[in-house]
């Protein structure tokens, strides 16, 4: 039986053994990408470019049906870079079902700490245009539960 690939975008490495062995998720095969390492030492001028590059590569290799995004440390420390990378990925791979593990309110709260209003406004505009990233079907929401 061919399993459905699911990619988690998390802050740092997580152990997927339990989920991959889980009787609840026999239909799925889980993969992850730790975002923080591509944000901490990024030399790219475009915010989040390095993360976006690695995430694109991983998506091309794994071909996930779902991309589950964890709004954790990586988002809190690098909100602009992180969200730009996620929104870029959504536009490059529109067929991927995306799920976020926290609400849009939480995300906006995270953006409050930004000093530079131009960056924030640009990002808020992008978020407003891509609000659908927060819409989840039942199955995506179920998979998001793995990260809660």
């Amino acid at each position, binding site marked *: 039986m061919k399993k459905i690939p699911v990619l988690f975008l998390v802050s740092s490495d*997580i*152990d997927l053994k*339990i*989920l991959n*062995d*889980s*009787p*609840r998720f026999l239909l799925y095969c889980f993969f992850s990408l730790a975002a923080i390492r591509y944000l901490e030492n990024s030399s790219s001028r475009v915010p989040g470019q390095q993360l976006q590059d690695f995430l694109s590569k991983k998506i091309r290799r794994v071909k996930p049906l779902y991309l589950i995004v964890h709004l*954790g*440390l990586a988002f*809190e420390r690098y909100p602009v870079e992180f969200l730009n990378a996620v929104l870029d990925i959504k536009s490059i791979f529109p067929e991927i079902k995306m799920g976020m593990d926290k609400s849009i309110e939480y995300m906006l709260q995270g953006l409050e700490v930004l000093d530079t209003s131009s960056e924030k406004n640009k990002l808020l505009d992008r978020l407003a245009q891509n609000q659908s990233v927060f819409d989840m079907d039942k199955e995506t929401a179920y998979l998001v539960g*793995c*990260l*809660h």
Partner: protein
Amino acid sequence: MSITLVIVSTALASTFGASLATFLIQKYYDRRLEYYFNSRLEELKANLNVQGDIKNLIISKRLEIYPHIAELIYRLRNNLKEMCQKDPLTLEQAVDFLRFAEEYTEQIYSTRLYLERDRIFESLHNYKGHILTAKNSLLDWIYLTRDKPVKNTKSINKTMSQLREVYSHLDHQHRRLIRKLTELTQT
């Protein structure tokens, strides 16, 4: 009037004028300096008050939040210990753990600004990682025991051993975290 008198009186008048001007200028600058230092002093006092207020806010937030987080750390570890020791574990115990796990996660995220400032967020987040593993194992256990538990004995045992492994991590970390939170509450 002799010319000498004129010269002397002119010299005196100009000396007086110069002295008066110097005196007035000095007074003016004295006032300016006094005003400048007084306003700086007021600014510093206000800054000190703000800093004092912030310090008090942080102390009261620590007193309000940290003991509760410490309690949750302890409860999660104890709850998991009981589940690993008792055979079979009960659904009530599993549900209790899931409830505490949710509360713990919510607490550390909602208060992360204070926790980050005190450089303890990362350790608490790491503890949360183990709790998430336990949560997923417990959900597996619930799933496996819901129907045909006999048929699933092997998988149930595997889940139990995963829980024991998570317990060893929680047991190893919980004392250090509680000690650190307690120290921060007392400072």
